[in-house]
C-alpha cells in the first residue's frame, strides 16, 4: 500500500462518503472528538497518560489482531520515554485525528503499515514527553534541565533529587511541546530490536483477554441475524410468529441487512432466528454461479487494459524471440475466516452511544455511527477490544452497522454475534483473478520481453473510490511489476466487477500478482533449461536487496544439494510493504497429496522493532498462505456461497504445518511491514516445488493434482 504517499489522500478519504451497503465512512472528525476517552490522568500527549500514582498508559493507535502492535507500538514510545515496558498499561486508542495512519489516510489497521508509519512519530512523541517531564523537574528544583536525567519513569537531579513521572505529570502536561527533539542512537536502544515478550500474552493464556465476543454491558440482550443467502439480496417478506413464541425471545426487528432476533441469551436468539420464515428477494445476483463468473472474467480479460508498465517494446521483443512462453494463472475467491466470528456490541440511546467491538477501522466506525444514529460525534464513544483475527475482514464494518441498527430499534444494549456459517457466506471475499503472461527468451535463454495482462476486481472501488484513477486500483497491482532486469516489459490491468463483494485480504494483491509472476519466471527458467535460482540471480544485478535475500535463502536451504528421495525444492522472491523476502520450500507428493515439509525464509525488513514478533508473523503467514494455496476456494451457485464452515472451507491444521526456518538480514534500512508478505510468497514457492517434484505446472488455485 506504499504507493499512496500523496498528501491529498486524506482529503480523498474525507470526501469518500458512500460505500457498499449504505455505510458512511471516513467522515471527518471534529476536534471535540479527540478527547472522547480522555481519562482524569494527566495527558502528556495523544500517546501517553501518566497518573499521579505513576501508572503509565500508552495508547496504541492500531488494533491488536495478533500481529503484535499492542507490544510494538508502546515499545517505540517507551524507548524514548525511558520507562520499563513491563510496567506500562496499553490501551487501543479511540477514534481521533491524531491517530490516523498517514500511509493509509485513515485510522485503519492494515497494509502492514503500523510500525513503518509509527516508527518516527511514536519515538518523537516519547522523547517529547520525556523532555517535558525533565523540564517540569528542572523548574521545580530551580536547576537547568541539562543537570537532570530521566530513567525508569523517574527524573533525577543534582544533589540526589528525585521525582517520579507521576509526581511531575501534571506540571509537565502544561509545558509547551518541544520542537527540537534528538532521538537516541540505535546503539543506545534498550527495547527496539530486542526479542521482547508480548505484553498481551498473560491475558491470552488464562481466558481474561477481552475479545469483542466477550463484551458485557448491564442489561445487555443478544442478537442473531438472518441475512439473505444471496449476496446483495434483501428481505421480501417474513413471518416471525413462530420465532416470537420461542423461549427468551424479546424482539424481532427488520434492519437494512435482514431480520434480527433479540433474546435473553445468544443461543435462544439463534434458535429463534433459524425458525424465522423469510422470503428473500435475491436481486441481480440471484443467478450468479462460479461458472458464469469465470466466463465473464474471461470475456473481460479479452479487452485491453489500463497500462501500468511500459518499458522498451515488449511486442517487438516477443516477435524477435528465439523462444516464447505463455501461461495463464487463475485464482479463486477466498474468505478471511478469522477464528472469532463477526460480532459487535452497541448501546444506542437518545443522547449517547457506546460502541464496543473488534474493528480495524476506528475512523470509519465513528463516522458510520454518527450517520446511523443521528448523534453528534461527541456523543459517541468507540472502544476497540482485542480482535480474534482480522486479516482485513474487520476493515469492513457491516456487522457494526447491524448492531447499531438493532440496538437503536430495541432501545437496549445488544450484542450481535454471527455464526460461522454467517461468516463464511457473508464475507467480503478476496477477488478472483486471471493473469495472462507471455515472455520471450533469446538464444541463450535470457528473458528479453515480458507481458502481463491482469483481470480482477477492485476492492478500492467499493471502499475508497477516489483512489481508483484511470482504470487503475493501486491495491490491485501491488508487486505486478517484476524486479528482474528484463529490457522490454508491458503490463496492463482490467478491472472487472463480478457481482461478488470483495475485500482486502491479508497481503491484498501481492498474493495474486506474486503467485503469477513467481510461477512464470520459474516457467521461463524451465524453458531456458536453467536452474530457477541461478536464472533469477542473473537478473538481479541492479537489485541488491532482492539479490541478497535470494542468496541467503538458497544457501540456508541447501539449494542444489541432494534431497531425500521423493522430495523437491521450489524457490520464490518478492518485495512487499518495504520488506524483501525469499523462500525455499521442500515438498513431496504422494497419491496426489501435496505435503510441505520445510520452508526456509530469508527476509530483509530493514530495522525491526521486535524479532520475537517478526518470527511469529512468519509462522503465521506461512500457515495462512498454505491454507489458501492448498485448500482455499469459495464457490457460488444461485448467487449463494456454497461453503459454510470449516468442513468445506478447510484451514491448515497442526499436522500439515511444515518446519519453518527464519533468517533475518541485519539491516539499517527503513522498517518494512512484516504482517503480510510471506502469505503471498509461499504460494508460488510451493507451486514451483510441486513442479520440481512432479513435472506438473499447476496454474490454478487451490493446487490440485489430477
Amino acid at each position, binding site marked *: 500500500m506504499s504507493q499512496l504517499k500523496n498528501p491529498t489522500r486524506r482529503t480523498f478519504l474525507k470526501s469518500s462518503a458512500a460505500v457498499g451497503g449504505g455505510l458512511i465512512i471516513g467522515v471527518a472528525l471534529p476536534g471535540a472528538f479527540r478527547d472522547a476517552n480522555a481519562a482524569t490522568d494527566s495527558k502528556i500527549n495523544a500517546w501517553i497518560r501518566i497518573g499521579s500514582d505513576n501508572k503509565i498508559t500508552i495508547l496504541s493507535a492500531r488494533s*491488536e*489482531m*495478533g*500481529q*503484535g502492535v499492542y507490544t510494538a507500538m508502546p515499545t517505540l514510545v517507551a524507548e524514548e520515554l525511558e520507562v520499563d515496558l513491563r510496567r506500562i498499561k496499553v490501551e487501543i486508542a479511540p477514534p481521533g485525528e491524531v491517530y490516523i495512519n498517514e500511509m493509509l489516510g485513515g485510522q485503519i489497521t492494515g497494509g502492514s503499515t503500523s510500525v513503518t508509519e509509527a516508527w518516527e512519530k511514536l519515538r518523537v512523541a516519547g522523547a517529547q514527553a520525556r523532555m517535558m517531564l525533565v523540564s517540569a523537574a528542572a523548574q521545580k528544583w530551580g536547576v537547568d534541565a541539562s543537570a537532570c536525567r530521566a530513567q525508569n519513569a523517574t527524573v533525577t537531579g543534582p544533589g540526589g533529587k528525585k521525582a517520579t513521572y507521576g509526581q511531575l505529570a501534571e506540571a509537565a502536561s502544561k509545558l509547551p511541546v518541544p520542537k527540537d527533539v534528538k532521538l537516541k542512537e540505535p546503539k543506545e536502544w534498550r527495547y527496539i530490536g530486542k526479542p521482547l*515478550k*508480548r505484553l*498481551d*500474552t*498473560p*491475558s*491470552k*493464556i*488464562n*481466558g*481474561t*483477554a*477481552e*475479545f469483542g*465476543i*466477550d463484551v*458485557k454491558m448491564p442489561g445487555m440482550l*443478544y442478537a442473531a441475524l438472518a441475512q439473505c443467502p444471496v449476496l446483495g439480496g434483501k428481505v421480501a417478506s417474513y413471518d416471525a410468529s413462530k420465532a416470537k413464541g420461542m*423461549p427468551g425471545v424479546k424482539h424481532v426487528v427488520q434492519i437494512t441487512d435482514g431480520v434480527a432476533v433479540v433474546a435473553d*441469551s*445468544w*443461543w435462544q436468539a439463534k434458535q429463534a432466528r433459524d425458525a424465522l420464515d423469510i422470503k428473500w428477494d435475491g436481486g441481480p445476483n440471484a443467478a450468479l454461479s462460479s461458472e458464469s463468473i469465470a466466463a465473464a472474467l474471461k470475456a473481460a480479460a479479452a479487452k485491453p487494459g489500463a497500462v501500468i508498465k511500459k518499458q522498451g517494446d515488449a511486442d517487438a521483443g516477443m516477435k524477435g524471440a528465439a523462444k516464447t512462453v505463455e501461461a495463464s494463472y487463475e485464482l479463486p475467491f477466498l474468505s478471511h*475466516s*478469522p*477464528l*472469532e*466470528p463477526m460480532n459487535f456490541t452497541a448501546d444506542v440511546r437518545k443522547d449517547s452511544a457506546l460502541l464496543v467491538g473488534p474493528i480495524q477501522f476506528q475512523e470509519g466506525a465513528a463516522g458510520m455511527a454518527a450517520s446511523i444514529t443521528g448523534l453528534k460525534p461527541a456523543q459517541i464513544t468507540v472502544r476497540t477490544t*482485542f*480482535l*480474534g*483475527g*482480522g*486479516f482485513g475482514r474487520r476493515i469492513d464494518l457491516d456487522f457494526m452497522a447491524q448492531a447499531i441498527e438493532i440496538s437503536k430499534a430495541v432501545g437496549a444494549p445488544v450484542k450481535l*454475534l454471527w*455464526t*460461522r456459517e454467517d461468516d463464511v457466506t457473508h464475507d467480503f471475499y478476496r477477488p478472483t483473478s486471471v493473469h495472462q503472461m507471455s515472455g520471450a527468451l533469446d538464444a541463450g535463454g535470457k528473458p528479453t520481453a515480458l507481458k502481463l495482462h491482469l483481470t480482477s476486481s477492485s476492492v478500492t472501488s467499493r471502499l475508497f473510490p477516489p483512489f481508483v484513477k484511470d482504470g487503475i486500483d493501486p491495491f490491485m497491482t501491488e508487486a505486478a511489476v517484476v524486479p528482474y532486469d528484463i529490457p522490454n516489459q508491458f503490463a496492463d490491468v482490467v478491472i472487472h466487477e463480478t457481482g461478488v463483494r470483495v475485500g482486502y485480504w491479508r497481503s491484498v494483491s501481492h498474493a495474486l500478482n506474486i503467485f503469477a509472476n513467481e510461477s512464470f519466471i520459474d516457467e521461463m527458467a524451465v524453458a531456458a533449461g536453467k536452474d530457477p535460482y541461478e536464472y533469477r540471480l542473473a537478473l538481479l544485478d541492479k537489485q541488491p536487496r532482492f539479490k541478497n535475500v535470494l542468496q541467503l535463502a538458497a544457501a540456508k536451504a541447501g539449494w542444489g544439494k541432494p534431497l531425500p528421495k521423493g522430495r523437491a525444492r521450489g524457490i520464490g522472491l518478492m518485495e512487499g510493504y518495504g520488506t524483501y523476502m525469499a523462500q525455499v520450500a521442500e515438498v513431496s507428493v504422494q497419491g496426489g497429496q501435496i505435503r510441505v515439509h520445510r520452508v526456509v525464509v530469508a527476509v530483509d525488513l530493514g530495522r525491526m522493532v521486535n524479532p*520475537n514478533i517478526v518470527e*511469529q508473523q512468519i*509462522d*503465521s*503467514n*506461512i*500457515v*495462512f498462505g498454505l491454507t489458501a494455496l492448498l485448500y482455499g476456494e469459495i464457490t457460488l451457485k444461485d448467487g449463494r456461497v456454497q461453503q459454510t*464452515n*470449516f*468442513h468445506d472451507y478447510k*484451514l*491448515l*491444521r*497442526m*499436522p500439515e*504445518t511444515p*518446519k*519453518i526456518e527464519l533468517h533475518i538480514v541485519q539491516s539499517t534500512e527503513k522498517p518494512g511491514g512484516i504482517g503480510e508478505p510471506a502469505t503471498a510468497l509461499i504460494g508460488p514457492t510451493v507451486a514451483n516445488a510441486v513442479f520440481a517434484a512432479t513435472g506438473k505446472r499447476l496454474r490454478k488455485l487451490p493446487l490440485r493434482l489430477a
Partner: protein
Amino acid sequence: MASLNVNGKTLDVNADSNTPLLWVLRDTLGMTGTKFGCGAALCGACTVHLDGKPIRSCSTPLSAAAGKKITTIEGIGSSDVGKKVQAAWASLDVPQCGYCQSGQIMAATALLTEKPKPTDADIDNAMAGNICRCGTYPRIRAAIHKAAKGA
C-alpha cells in the same frame, strides 16, 4: 434448573437442558474464556474438560455435562499440568490474536495429563482438532515439548 460443577464450584444454572454447554458457560455464567469458533465441533476453540477429558462444549448439551466435573480455561491453572502448560505458553509467547488459545491450552493439558512425554505424532493427533487461524502451531508444538520437560 441444573446443577453444574465448574472448576470445583457447584453452580445452579437456569437454562434449557438442550443448550450447548458453551453458551451456558459464556452467557449464563459469564465465563467468557471459552470461545466460539464454529459451533460444529470443527475447530476446538470451545474445548473444556469433562471429567478430565477434552470435549467440544459447543456440541455438548447441558444435560450431558450435569453431574460431571467441568474444567475451563479459568480453572486450568489450578492443576499441576495446566500450570506447566500455561508457563510454557508464556515463556515461548505462543498466542497471536489469542482467540484459539483457551482451546489449545485445554487440549494440550489433556494430552500431557494422559501422556506426560508426547512424541510429535502424539501432538499431531491430540492437537489436530484445534484450529489456529493465526498459525501458532510451531510454537504450540514447542510449548508442549517444553511443558513435558517440566519447564
